[in-house]
């Protein structure tokens, strides 16, 4: 088949557990292991501390197809992209790639802080696989896109983080390989710039280039891709038209009967002394449930523990539609009185609880994200996809007509009809 861009067959990648934390070993450790363990013991150990980050993955991509890849953190998406972009070798299976691959696992790879913007464009371009003549040709376009014309001869160490990202993305955006592999690079920068990046990505997609696109942003996935792979625990669990795959992904694994707790591996060390325990959703005064009625008030509870007193902590939620669009952000100390009263929270276990008014959300799936931070000081913990829940619209206004209503909110507006 000549119009095939990519064929992946039974691909798997095995890692040794603990490889991530002690990233390197000293000679003495290795020598010690060699001498202290018999061969047999070593083999047994080897079987125990190896895990498959990815296994039995098979799929084809046609030329010109834009394929999305979604899955929770740690599901194996990044490992898959790393294999396809040749950063790491698979442990089993194979992939066949027809054409030149350009991969963007990160923007600004190889940027050197001491070099100027101009110099970094050339360096980064070469690292991404562009020819010098190609960079020369696109140079002005790249600079214009990045909006840092004035500072192009300034070392990038003096750039603001926004400028740095814009320049880095600008170089990446002008990469023109036959197959483009992109990992979550749109999740950077301010909203304005994200919109610009997304626009650039959809241009790329429309030029008939083959694109593999990993994102947590469901609306970006829906906008840019036709088909999407869902990866769960290293396995490919579904391949479907994007709308269907997104629905499947959102309804699966993430909602655990209206509540979600975090195990130790899911909490970064930097969260200390904040320890998230659980997030729950329920109709006020009712048992915890995945499905809440929009007719009644909906309570969202975030339970957590502080292992040490914290000042300036605010704990809050994001509410998002199933498509990943934000509906609201709210913190437990938004209210001035609470803000003053909880300026410092002593160590202990807490529940921060808020109530959504009745007749607020339309029917459908929603996602709650959580955030615990001290403004401008530190973000202790964030999980943008902590929990999904379903809103049942029984008794909501307009239910006499059995039709889906557009929009994420469904308030009971006060209508008056006058005959004039």
């Amino acid at each position, binding site marked *: 088949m*000549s*119009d095939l861009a990519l064929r992946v067959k039974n691909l798997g990648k095995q*890692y040794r557990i603990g*490889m991530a934390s002690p*990233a*390197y*070993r*000293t*000679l*003495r450790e*290795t020598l010690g292991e060699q001498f202290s363990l018999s061969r047999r013991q070593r083999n047994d150990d080897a079987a125990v501390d190896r895990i498959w980050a990815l296994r039995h993955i098979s799929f084809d991509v046609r*030329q010109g197809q834009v394929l999305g890849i979604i899955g929770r953190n740690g599901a194996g998406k990044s490992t898959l992209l*790393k*294999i*396809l*972009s*040749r*950063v*790491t*070798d*698979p*442990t*089993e*299976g*194979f*992939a*066949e*790639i*027809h*054409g*030149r*691959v350009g*991969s963007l*696992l*990160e923007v600004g*790879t*190889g940027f*050197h802080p*001491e*070099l100027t913007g101009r*110099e970094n464009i*050339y*360096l980064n371009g*070469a*690292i*991404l*696989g562009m*020819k*010098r003549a190609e960079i020369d040709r696109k140079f002005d376009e790249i600079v214009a896109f990045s909006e840092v014309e004035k500072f192009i001869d300034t070392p990038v160490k003096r750039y603001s983080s926004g400028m740095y990202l814009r320049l880095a993305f600008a170089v990446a955006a002008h990469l023109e390989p*036959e197959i483009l592999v992109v990992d979550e690079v749109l999740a950077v920068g301010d909203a304005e710039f994200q919109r610009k990046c997304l626009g650039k990505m959809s241009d790329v997609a429309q030029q*008939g280039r083959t694109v593999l696109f990993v994102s947590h942003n469901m609306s970006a996935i829906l906008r840019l891709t036709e088909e999407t792979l869902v990866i769960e625990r290293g396995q490919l669990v579904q391949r479907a038209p994007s709308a269907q795959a997104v629905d499947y992904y959102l309804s699966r694994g993430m909602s655990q009967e209206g509540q979600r707790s975090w195990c130790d591996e899911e909490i970064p060390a930097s969260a200390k002394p904040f320890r998230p325990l659980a997030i729950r959703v329920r109709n006020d005064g009712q048992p915890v449930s995945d499905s809440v009625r929009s007719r009644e008030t909906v309570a969202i509870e975030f339970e957590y523990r502080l292992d040490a007193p914290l000042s300036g902590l605010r704990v809050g939620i994001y509410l998002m539609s199933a498509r990943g669009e934000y509906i609201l952000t709210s913190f437990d100390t938004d209210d001035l009185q609470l803000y003053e009263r909880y300026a410092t929270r002593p160590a202990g276990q807490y529940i921060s609880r808020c109530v959504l008014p009745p007749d607020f959300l339309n029917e459908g799936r929603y996602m709650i994200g959580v955030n615990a931070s001290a403004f401008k000081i530190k973000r202790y913990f964030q999980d943008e996809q902590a929990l999904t829940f379903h809103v049942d619209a029984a008794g909501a206004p307009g239910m006499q007509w059995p039709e889906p209503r557009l929009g994420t909110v469904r308030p009971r507006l006060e209508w008056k009809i006058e005959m004039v």
Partner: protein
Amino acid sequence: MAGRGDAQVTILKPASGWSLIDLRDLWHFRELIYFLTWRDLKVRYKQTLLGASWAVLRPFLTMVVFSIFFGKLAGVPSDGVPYPIFSFTALLPWELFAASLTVAAHSLVQNRHMITKIYFPRLILPLSAILAGVVDFLIAFVVLVGMMVYYRFVPTANAWTLPLFLLLALVTALGVGLWLSALNVLYRDINYVTPFLTQFWLFITPIAYPASLVPGQWKILYALNPMAGVVEGFRWALLGIHNPNLGTLVSTSVIVSLLLLVSGLLYFRRMERIFADMV
């Protein structure tokens, strides 16, 4: 888009066995070699007061110290030429070798953010580290020319062989650099081994003293150090110092340095596939 049908096909599968070098791949990335070398040079002397003069100062000051302590005070013989030019001729290739080796040994670990995010032949990192050393060498070489004028030395008719000895130094540095950089990914002990190694190596190379000082029965063992061949070659080509064993010395050096290069390449290529996971 033209040529879609016959686009290149890459097969990604678990690697197995030994492989030496993929020249086509390296050629494809030739511009990256250039840019990384250029980056290393550009960054090396950023925010330094004296800039590229360091390339000259380092061997020059070492030469001054050697001349005072070994040449004057200890009275080390110098094969009949003035001691300063005797030692400086040796220090030039030595500095190139030692500096390139050190930079190459750290090249993979220092560029780990690139290794974990993007594909390119990993060989490029130690390679460009060594190429950047050549530029420093060329700068310092101007000083040597000045010293030759000062001491009224006319280069011998064998001066054309100089690039070959330079190449021998580079091949040796690359061979050892490949070993050290790949080992460094697994064992950070290399960070401590490298300075010690270069210091040790300095003493077993005829830089502060002439190779003729080495007793006959040790000559064979001494010749196993490729840098001995390089240094004696430099002195022969530029200063006309004739070492009766030069032929044996240089051919042994060439064999040893090629062995280092080939084994270094094999080991490097073997370990290459786990760099991204281990670095």
